[in-house]
C-alpha cells in the first residue's frame, strides 16, 4: 500500500519547510528509520526519517522547494504497485515555492495548508490598510502593526505614506551608497536570518523594554568554578554560562513573575523554568533550551547544554531543543565585552545579557584591591513587570552569584 510522506510539523509555529536535500533517490530502497530527506525549518535543519519501509517511488517536490506543513512531498510504496499521484501544481524551477493544488485524500482531518490552518506568510492587516497599501504601493511586509494583536491598521499605512513623502526620507543616499559596497550581489536571506529579523523587529516594536544593569562580584563564582573543574574530567568542565543559567533559573523560581509571557492582553506565568541560552551559529543565532533548569544538578545541566550547543552548531538540533524557553541568558563574556543590552526573545518576558568577568580595582573598607567583576543587564517587558520587581530579581541573582554554594544544593 503506497504511503504519502508529508511535510512534517517540526515546531509548534512551523507553517512551512524547505526541502534541502533528498537522501534517497527515486526507486531506492528505504528502511523504516532511515533518513529520507533533510528539511530546513525557520530554526534548524532536521533529518526526517522514513516511518515505513519500502521503495521511494516518487519525490513530489524538488530540492529547494518550500512546502506547507502537511502537504505531500514523497510517495513510499512497493516497487511495482501502481501509483495514484496526488494532484500537484506544476513544479517550478528548484527554489521556487511549490504549492499543492489539493491536499492528499489520504490525510483526512488535516488542514490543507499548514497543519494548524494558518496561512503561511501573510501580513496581518485590516482591509482598509491593505487597500491603502495597494493604492500607494506600500509593502505591508515591511510595516509594523500597531493595532490589536499586531495587526497593521490604517494609521500604520498612513504613517508609511507620510514618511515616504518627506523629501529625502527614502532617497537620501548614505555616504557609502556610491561606493563599491552597493555593487556586491546580495545573497538571498537565509530562513534563519529572515526569522531572526522578523522576531527581533517584532520584539523591539511591540515589547516596551526596560533595562537594569548590575555589577556583580564574580570572585566567589570563579573560585567555585575553579575548585569544581579541578575535580571534573576535561570533557565535563563547568562554564560560566552553566553557573549563570543555574543562578538565573533559581532566581526565576524565587520571583516567578519574570518567568512569564505577555499574550493576548494577559500575563501567563509558566510553571516550568526553561532557560534558553543564546548560541552563535553560522549566519545567525539560536537558543538552546535547558528544561527545568532550576531543578537539574549543575553537572547534568552543563553536559546537556554542551551537547545541545554542539548539535545546534552542526545544524542537527532537535526541535524540542530549540523551543519552549521561558527566559533567555545571552553570554558574550568570551568576546571581551564589558556589558551589553539584549532584545527580549518573544514570547518571553525578560532576557539576561552577560558581559566579561574583569579584574578591576575595588574598594574594600579603606583599601583599594583587585577584584573580579561581572556586569549583567536584564531587559524586561514593562507590560509584565516593573523596575522594582526586576531590581529585586537582580538582587536575588546577585545572591546566587556572590554566594554560589547555593547553586550546588
Amino acid at each position: 500500500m503506497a504511503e504519502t510522506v508529508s511535510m512534517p510539523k517540526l515546531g509548534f509555529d512551523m507553517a512551512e519547510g524547505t526541502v534541502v536535500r533528498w537522501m534517497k533517490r527515486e526507486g531506492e530502497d528505504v528502511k523504516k528509520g532511515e533518513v529520507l530527506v533533510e528539511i530546513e525549518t525557520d530554526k534548524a535543519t532536521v533529518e526526517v526519517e522514513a516511518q515505513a519501509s519500502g521503495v521511494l517511488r516518487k519525490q513530489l517536490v524538488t530540492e529547494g522547494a518550500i512546502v506547507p506543513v502537511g502537504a505531500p512531498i514523497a510517495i513510499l510504496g512497493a516497487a511495482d504497485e501502481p501509483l495514484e499521484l496526488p494532484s500537484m501544481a506544476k513544479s517550478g524551477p528548484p527554489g521556487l515555492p511549490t504549492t499543492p493544488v489539493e491536499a492528499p485524500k489520504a490525510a483526512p482531518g488535516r488542514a490543507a495548508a499548514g497543519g494548524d490552518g494558518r496561512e503561511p506568510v501573510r501580513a496581518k492587516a485590516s482591509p482598509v490598510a491593505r487597500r491603502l497599501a495597494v493604492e500607494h504601493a506600500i509593502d505591508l511586509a515591511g510595516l509594523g502593526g500597531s493595532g490589536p494583536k499586531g495587526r497593521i491598521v490604517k494609521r500604520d499605512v498612513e504613517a508609511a505614506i507620510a514618511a515616504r513623502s518627506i523629501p529625502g526620507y527614502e532617497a537620501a543616499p548614505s555616504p557609502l551608497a556610491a561606493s563599491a559596497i552597493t555593487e556586491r550581489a546580495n545573497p538571498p536571506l537565509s530562513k534563519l536570518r529572515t526569522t531572526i529579523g522578523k522576531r527581533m523587529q517584532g520584539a523591539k516594536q511591540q515589547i516596551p523594554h526596560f533595562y537594569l544593569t548590575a555589577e556583580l562580584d564574580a570572585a566567589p563564582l570563579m573560585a567555585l568554578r575553579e575548585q569544581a573543574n579541578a575535580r571534573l574530567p576535561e570533557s565535563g568542565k563547568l562554564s560560566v554560562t552553566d553557573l549563570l543559567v543555574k543562578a538565573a533559573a533559581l532566581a526565576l523560581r524565587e520571583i516567578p513573575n519574570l518567568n512569564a509571557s505577555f499574550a493576548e492582553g494577559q500575563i501567563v506565568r509558566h510553571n516550568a523554568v526553561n532557560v534558553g541560552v543564546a548560541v552563535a551559529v553560522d549566519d545567525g543565532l539560536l537558543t538552546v533550551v535547558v528544561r527545568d533548569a532550576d531543578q537539574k544538578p549543575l553537572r547534568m545541566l552543563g553536559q546537556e547544554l554542551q551537547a545541545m550547543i554542539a548539535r545546534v552548531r552542526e545544524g542537527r538540533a532537535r526541535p524540542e531543543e530549540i523551543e519552549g524557553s521561558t527566559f533567555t541568558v545571552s553570554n558574550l563574556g568570551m568576546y571581551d565585552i564589558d556589558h551589553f543590552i539584549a532584545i527580549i526573545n518573544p514570547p518571553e518576558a525578560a532576557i539576561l545579557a552577560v558581559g566579561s568577568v574583569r579584574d578591576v580595582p575595588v574598594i574594600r573598607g579603606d583599601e583599594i584591591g583587585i577584584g573580579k567583576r561581572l556586569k549583567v543587564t536584564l531587559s524586561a517587558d514593562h507590560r509584565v513587570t516593573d523596575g522594582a520587581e526586576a531590581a529585586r530579581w537582580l538582587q536575588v541573582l546577585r545572591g546566587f552569584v556572590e554566594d554560589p554554594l547555593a547553586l550546588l544544593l
Partner: protein
Amino acid sequence: MPLLTMREAISQALWEEMERDERVFILGEEVGVWGGTYAVTKGFYDHFGPERVRDTPIAEAVIVGAANGAAMAGLKPVAELMTINFAFLAMDQIVNHSAKLRSMFGGQFTVPVVIRAVGGGGRQLGATHSQTPDVVFAHFPGLKVVAPGTPHDAKGLLKAAIRSEDPVIFVEHATLYHTRGEVPEGEFLESIGTSKVQRRGRDVTLVTYSKMLQLSMQAAEVLAQEHIEVEIVDLRTLRPLDMAPVIDSFKRTNRAVIVEEGWRSFGVGAEVASRIYEEAFDYVDAPIQRVGQKEVPLPYNRTLEQLALPQVEDIVRAVREVC
C-alpha cells in the same frame, strides 16, 4: 423649542392625528377610562369618547385582530400593547395577517394599523416582562418596525406611522417615557426608514437606536475626554433599515460598534455588521464590535439585571477595543 418628555411627545402625536383624521382610533387594555398604563392616553377618553378610545379585554390576539379588520375596512387603528412581551400572544395576527394581507390579496386593500408596544428592561419586571425583542418583528417583510430614541423622533415618527398605509410596530422604551428633549411646536413628520446622525465624530461609528441611543450619547461624552470622537447613527427604524448614513460614516471612520439592548445573537448588531462587511469591506480597519444584553433570561434581582443589560461602560470598552 419646548422641552417635552417622550410621554408628552407621543401623547401629542396621537392627539393631533386624532384631531386631524376621524378615522384614527385607539384600542387596547386600560387605554380609555384609566388613561393608559403609562398615562399616554390620559384625557383622551373624555375628549374623544368611548367610540374612538376603546378599552378591550385582556386578549392581545383580539386587540391586533380587531385592529387588522378595522384597518382593512378603512379605519386607522392605533392598537396599544401594554408590553411588547404580550405581542407574542398576538403573533399570528401580527406576522400572518398584518404583515401579509396586503400582498397575499393582491393589494385589494391595505392594513394601515399601528401597534404601539412598550418594550425594554431595567425595571425589575422579571424575565418575561422585560424583553427587547424588536428584531423578532424586524425579521418579517411586510412590517415596519420603528423605535425612536428621542421625544422629537417619537412624535414625528408616530405621526408618520399613523399615516402609513402599511402596518407599523412602534416600540416605545418604558424607561424613556420621562426623558426630555426639544420638540418643535406644531405639525411635523419624520420619515420612517431613515437613520439619523445624532452626534458627529471622526474616530468611530456607533450604530444604535431607542434607549441605547441615550447610553451611547453618555459613552461618547466619556470617550471625548480620551480624545475619541464618536459619531452616533440612530437607526430609528429597524425595517426598512436605512444603511446609507452608517456606510457613509463608516467609510470615514473605518471602525464601528453596534449597540442594542436585546441579545447580540441574531440581532441588530449582527445585521448591521454584515451589511457593513458587504458594502464597505475595503474600509474596515478593525473587527466590528457588538454590544448587547448578556445571553440569559433577564434576572429579576436589581444588581444582576443591571449587570445583564448593556451599560455605558460596556459601550466605552467596546469603542476602545476598536480604536
